Every structure is written in C-alpha cells, then in structure tokens.
C-alpha cells in the first residue's frame, strides 16, 4: 500500500517535473520566433533612428552649400559678381551629383586599394537599401552614398572663394569635374575608404584621425584654392581698388546657415543617431562659438573695433578646425581648438595674406586650408578614446587615440595625413588648371572682369532697384 502510494507520488512528481518541459517544448518555437521578431524590431528601430538622422544630416550638409556658402561668398564679393559667385556653388550641386552617381562614389568608397577605389559601384550598381557594413551597417547604402555626395559637393565649392570674380565659367566646370575625380575621391578614399592608406578605422598604414573631413574637405579645398589664386593671378585692381563686401547682411545669413548645417557635417559623420553624434554635435558648436570669440577679440584688440565680418569669419574658422576633431575630443578641448583657430586664422587672413600679397579673394586658403591643417594636427593632441571607443585592436581592446591618451605618435600620423592632402591638392590642382587653361582658358578677359561676371558671363544682374 505504502509502496503504491510512494510510486504514485513519484509518478506525480515525475509528471509534475516533466509537464513544464512538455509545455515548454510546445511553447519553444513560438517563443523563439517572437524573440527573433523582437530582436529584428529593435534592430529596425535602431536603423530607423540612424537613417532618420543621416537623411536629415544629408539635407543639412546640402544646405551648407546652397544657400549657406552661396550667400556667405556672394555677400563678400562686389555687387557686379554676386550671381556668378552663387552660380559657382549652385552649379556644383548639380554637376557633382551626376559625377558622383556615375563614378565618383565608387572611386571613393568602392574597392580596397590604398589610394583610390574601383568601379564596382559605378552607376551606383549595388547601392540600394541594404547597408554596406564596411562603412555603416545600420543605414541603407543609398543613404551613406547620398550623405557622402553632399560632402563631395561642398568641397569644390569652397575652392571658388579663391578665384571669385575672375574665373571663366566653362573652365570652372571642367576644372571641378576633374578635381572631383583626381583630388577629392582619392583623398576621401585614403582617409575613409576601405583599405585607404590613411584610414584609421579600417587599418590604414598611416592612420589619420579625420572625423568629418579636415583633410578630405578643408585642406584639399583650401590648398587647391591657394594654387588657383596664384595661378589665376590677382583681380584687376587688387589691392589698390576698393573691393569691399557688397552685402555683409547676405554673408551673415550664409554664415549662420553654415553653422547650423555643420551639425549635419560633423555630427552626421557619426553615421548614426548615437552618443558619438551627440558628442560631435557639442564639440562642433563649442568650436564655432569659441572661434567667433577668438577672432572678435583679436580684431577688437588689433583694429579697435569688433566687426560682424570678424565674428562670422571666426565661427567658420572654428567649424573648419573642429571638423577633423569633432568625434574625438571632449567639449572643453573643443572650445580651446576653436579659440586658437579663431585667432590663428585671423592672423593668416589679416597679416600673412597681406604680406605675401596673394589674392585669395574670400580667404579659402587662410580659413579652410590653414584652419583645416591646424585642426587636423590638434586632433592628434586632443583625440581621446573616452569620447570615441570605436577603435579596437585585434583582441578587442580599445586603442588610445591622441596625445591626451598617451599616444603621441598620432600627431605624426596627422602630419603625414595633412602632408598627403597638401601634396595631392597642389599637384592635382596644378595639372588640372593647366589642362583647363590650355583647352579653354581659365581667366576671363579684362573687359569682362571690369564689366562684372554677372552680366558678362551670365547675362543677368543681381539687384535691379529701379524696378
């Protein structure tokens, strides 16, 4: 009797223990599929957030060119050239788009050579909604491509500041197409492309930390600008004739659009809506603010009066300098970088340019070329893995970044990265200018320059007050 009870008890116990297992075995496929669905939904939400920010950033960067840069530069030239200056920025929004789609994107981000990419993405073949995990695994490659396109547009537009008021439109178009392929795409590939010689994230030989384009955008365009200014020569009447900005109001509006748009340029370079994007956003803003103060203070002391032109020039200089550093530095180093850049670029523009007497009409070299170089080198000083822990060694350990992390050799790598950008810009631009000059002639005729490019080249006037 007792053994029967014990047996039934054991059987009950067994049944009790096995029952959940039986129930679990029935529930398991259901729970598994639900778990998989939850994981996919979380990933989708992450992608949605990232993609939303990246598309917004792309729009912000395009806004930097049009109307940001167009207005900033347009206001700084004489009234008779305002439209031609804006046209130079605007037409690039159109032309570079086509070049990028056909071959530019592929040449920058396809393949894994050290110096330039290949043609696997020519005509955007294979560039669709699937992510390219080499670059950004949570957003469609199309988003990545179009984001990078906006950088490819603004970089050559910056150069126009050097040859404003005297370059032939047809020659400029040819120049820009060649420059995009010979200078921009290779530099972009070297720093950001897979296998690139300078690519810090993907195992480049001379890893250069360039978060959003200090070398790729500002050094290449700024140095190319100097080459153009020297090759084309001074504007007729420079420096004795009065060539004041015809509308600082317009330049001011442009500069503010640049500041706001730059959040897309720098924070968007985090390639996602992440903490790194927040950090880059803050660093960018702080750099701009401190640089504006730096330039204004320098001007106040030197000239006796602080000016709005100084303020907006300063903020742009700060934005340029913080660009390579934005995703690597803490907020207070960002303030320091900005402040130093504001004073340094003021010095470049107010003294060095006057001393060497080159006609870099809108200070593309002084602000972008030199500001970018300064920023790139200071990135080597202040970059820290406390801000950006994305760089790991093969064992998964987070690598030190800049001097503040005890990695002083990074400064050397930054110098190498700058030197390569300088070299590519100088050689590439000289060759391209020569080609354009031989084929089309790069400078307008003297009578066209005096009449003003708006009427001479474009057949229109910017302002018609009598209407």
């Amino acid at each position: 009797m007792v053994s029967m009870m014990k047996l039934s008890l054991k059987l009950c116990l067994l049944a009790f223990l096995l029952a959940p297992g039986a129930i679990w075995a029935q529930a398991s496929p259901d729970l598994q599929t639900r778990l998989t669905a939850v994981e996919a939904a979380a990933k989708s939400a992450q992608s949605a957030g990232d993609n939303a920010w990246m598309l917004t950033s792309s729009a912000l960067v395009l806004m930097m060119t049009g109307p940001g840069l167009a207005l900033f530069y347009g206001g700084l030239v004489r009234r008779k050239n305002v439209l031609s200056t804006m046209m130079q920025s605007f037409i690039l929004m159109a032309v570079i788009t086509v070049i990028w789609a056909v071959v530019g994107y592929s040449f920058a981000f396809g393949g894994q050579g050290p110096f330039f990419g290949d043609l696997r993405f020519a005509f955007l073949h294979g560039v669709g909604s699937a992510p390219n995990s080499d670059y950004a695994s949570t957003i469609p490659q199309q988003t990545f491509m179009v984001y990078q396109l906006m950088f490819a547009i603004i970089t050559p537009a910056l150069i126009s500041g050097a040859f404003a008021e005297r370059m032939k439109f047809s020659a400029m178009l040819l120049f820009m197409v060649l420059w995009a392929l010979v200078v921009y795409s290779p530099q972009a590939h070297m720093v950001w492309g897979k296998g690139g010689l300078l690519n810090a994230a993907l195992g480049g030989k001379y890893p250069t930390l360039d978060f959003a384009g200090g070398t790729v955008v500002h050094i290449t365009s700024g140095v190319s600008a100097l080459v153009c200014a020297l090759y084309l020569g001074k504007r007729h009447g420079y420096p004795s004739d009065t060539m004041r900005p015809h509308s600082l109001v317009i330049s001011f509006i442009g500069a503010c659009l640049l500041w706001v748009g730059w959040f897309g340029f720098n924070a968007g370079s985090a390639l996602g809506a992440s903490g790194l994007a927040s950090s880059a956003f803050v660093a960018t803003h702080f750099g701009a603010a401190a640089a504006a103060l730096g330039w204004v203070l320098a001007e106040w002391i030197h000239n006796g009066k602080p000016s709005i032109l100084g303020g907006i020039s300063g903020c742009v200089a700060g934005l340029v300098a913080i660009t390579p550093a934005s995703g690597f530095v803490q907020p207070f180093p960002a303030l320091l970088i900005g402040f130093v850049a504001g004073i340094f670029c003021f010095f470049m523009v107010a003294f060095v340019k006057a001393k060497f007497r080159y006609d870099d009409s809108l200070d593309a070299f002084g602000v972008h070329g030199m500001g970018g170089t300064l920023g790139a080198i200071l990135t080597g000083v202040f970059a820290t893995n406390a801000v950006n822990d994305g760089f790991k060694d093969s064992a998964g350990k987070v690598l030190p970044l800049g001097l503040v992390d005890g990695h002083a050799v990074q400064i050397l790598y930054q110098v190498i990265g700058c030197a390569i950008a300088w070299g590519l810009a100088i050689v590439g631009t000289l060759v391209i200018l020569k080609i354009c000059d031989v084929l089309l002639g790069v400078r307008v005729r003297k009578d066209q320059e005096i009449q003003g490019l708006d009427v001479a080249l474009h057949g229109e006037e910017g302002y018609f007050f009598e209407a």
Partner: protein
Amino acid sequence: MKKIEAIIQPFKLDDVKEALKGIGIDGMTITEVRGHGRQKGHKEVYRGQEYNVDLLPKVKLEMVVSSTRADEVIKTLAGAARTGKIGDGKIFVYEVADAIRIRNDDRGESAL
C-alpha cells in the same frame, strides 16, 4: 525762375522738408548721393584690408522756384539744414530757361 540745388546731411532731410513745406514749397526732387568737401571720411577694415571711405552719404534736393521767392527759399533751407559743423553742405542756384507741366502743357511760372 531759379533752380535751387542743395546738398545736405541726410539726417537733416526731414527738417528741411518741413521748413520748406511751411513756406509753401512742396515740390522737389530728392536723390541720395555721395561726396565730400572738406569733411574727412573714416576708415573701415574688412578682414585686415583697410579702406579709407571718403565718399560720404549726402542728400541732394532740387527744386525750381520763381525768382522772387528764391532768396526766401534759400534762407529757409539753409536755416533748417545748418548744424554749424563741417559737412553741412552747400546750395547752388541756377537760371532756368523754361518749365513745362506735362499734364496740361502749362509754361513758365504757372508750371511751377
């Protein structure tokens, strides 16, 4: 008939218009001009590039009045435009050969 051409400080325009209206003169042509006599300009600096701006903004008034009223107009105008400092401006007086009202072909003083 006399044409009275006055170059005055821009901030004096309202005073001058009021004063002239007060004596019954309210037809005139006003232009914004730049120029200088003995008044010094000022220095402007744009990104390190210095400019001496010596073309100063002024306002030019032109009106044609009957010869009998000319002196009265000049006195009123100058009085309203005067600050006593260099840069107050100048008044020039010209002889007018004829004046025609376009609306109805009136000629001479009746066209004024």
